[in-house]
């Protein structure tokens, strides 16, 4: 091949390589039919709030860098703090996971395992006086109270929660894909 350098030898080498790739299995995933198991620590597009264990300490609201968490607490008759209102604006949320890490109980707020939260359009727009279009909030993306609770579609992710991670399936890795490593 060296005699052919600068004469098309390099091109031929490259063409041989692409020809070899013709017989390798493809690496892309046919998404809606075929789904990968995500990482156990996935920071999906959900944040799950467990009302029962929450001690209303506001640590998550304070940790949030974009102030997406809106939590109002008051002191009840038994001198205990209770949550009056809890809402998270997923139009603002950057899914950084700082709220999950800051939680002192380690059982009250979780990242979600799900990542399919697309909606087609935003029908309810919350617009205050004098706000521009880009500043207004989409109400469908603001989840309040019980909407934040875990459910069948809102599975807890193992992000900073090792006990939740144990319940999740192994992540699929391209590197373990069968029939892929022979070169």
């Amino acid at each position, binding site marked *: 091949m060296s005699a*052919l350098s*600068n*004469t*098309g030898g390099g*091109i031929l080498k*490259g*063409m041989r*390589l*692409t*020809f070899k*790739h*013709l017989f*390798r*299995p*493809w*690496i*892309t995933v*046919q998404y809606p039919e075929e789904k990968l198991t995500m990482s156990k620590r996935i920071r999906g597009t959900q944040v799950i709030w467990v009302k029962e264990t929450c001690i209303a300490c506001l640590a998550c609201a304070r940790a949030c860098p974009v102030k997406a968490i809106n939590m109002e607490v008051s002191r009840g008759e038994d001198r205990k703090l209770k949550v009056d209102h809890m809402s998270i604006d997923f139009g603002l949320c950057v899914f950084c996971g700082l709220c999950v890490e800051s939680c002192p109980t380690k059982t009250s707020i979780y990242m979600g395992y799900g990542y399919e939260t697309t909606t087609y359009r935003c029908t309810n727009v919350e617009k205050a006086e004098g706000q521009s279009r880009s500043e207004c909030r989409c109400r469908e993306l603001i989840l309040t109270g019980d909407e934040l609770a875990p459910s069948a579609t809102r599975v807890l992710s193992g992000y900073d929660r090792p006990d939740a991670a144990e319940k999740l399936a192994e992540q699929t890795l391209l590197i373990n894909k069968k029939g892929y490593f022979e070169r």
Partner: protein
Amino acid sequence: MSDFWVHLLVYLVILFGFVIVSVLLFIWLERRFIGRFQLRPGPNRAGPFGLLQPIADAIKVLIKEDIIPTESDKGVFWLAPLVAFVPVMLMFAAIPFADGAMLVDLNIGILYILAVSSVTVIGIFMAGWSSNSKYSLLGAMRTIAQEVSYEIPLVLSILGVVMLTGSLSMNEIVKAQSVPFVLLQPLGFFVYLSAAMAEINRTPFDLLEAESEIIAGFHTEYSGMKFGLFYLMEYAEVLAISAIATTLFLGGWQGPLLHPVIWFITKVLIIFMFIIWVRATIPRLRIDQVMAFGWKFLLPLSLANLVITAFEILAAPDMNTAVLIGINIAVMFGLILLFSRFYKLGGGRVSVK
């Protein structure tokens, strides 16, 4: 109705059907194969194996809004896709699908095809000029420079075949190929394929629509069915070039056992696959390198090919075919190696005050 009109009507329908169907098939094949080269499956949603994808695309293109830029030269803008598309269709008139199975067996067949195919450039230039966009203009400028210069090696490489056959009729050329001319004219085939790929703007000569540089070149401003016509034209051109290469060099419809039409289509597909393969592998050249490759490399090679062919015909008309094939292939490799050592690309940086 006379036989002439029946013949004309039948073949017009067959031709149009053949071209449209195979262009759709080609689009599917190309996307599918490029996908496989790139480790992905390619279009696989519409219909079995994604076979209906080009039809879905065609419907989408048809019902799209037709945008005409306000500052454009509207008449020319309108006319350009037609001027580019019609000559490509005309080219198929003289291509034999089987023995004599063609619209007209012109006795100047190959000359006619070359003449008609050159008109496409005007359509492309009209599109680039009338769009009133700088990207389109750059693309059109590149096209003119490229297509005009590659016409010469293209014609010269075909001349070798014509000399061997002694006829310009496409059907006669096929009949004369007891041995496919690719073996007798390997150099001619190489020059023809290179020049033809430049003529139809396939990688690595796809400068006029270099996506990473000038967006889409001459059809940046086109949309809807006008864009569809350009798209169709490109693939029809590929089909035409593959068909001509098959006819001139690969023995056309000739072949044992199977029906001639099947042989013809198989050979066309082989050439097309090769073009896809090249497209999947290599990057594109720069405009001055394309010009240098045409003028400094392909042109001398095609001239050399002409001289060698003439010499073989005159000096050794009765030589054993097998020996001749050996000599020709050796000469091809020798010349390519020699020329690639000699020619300099030059160009590069231009000093700007």
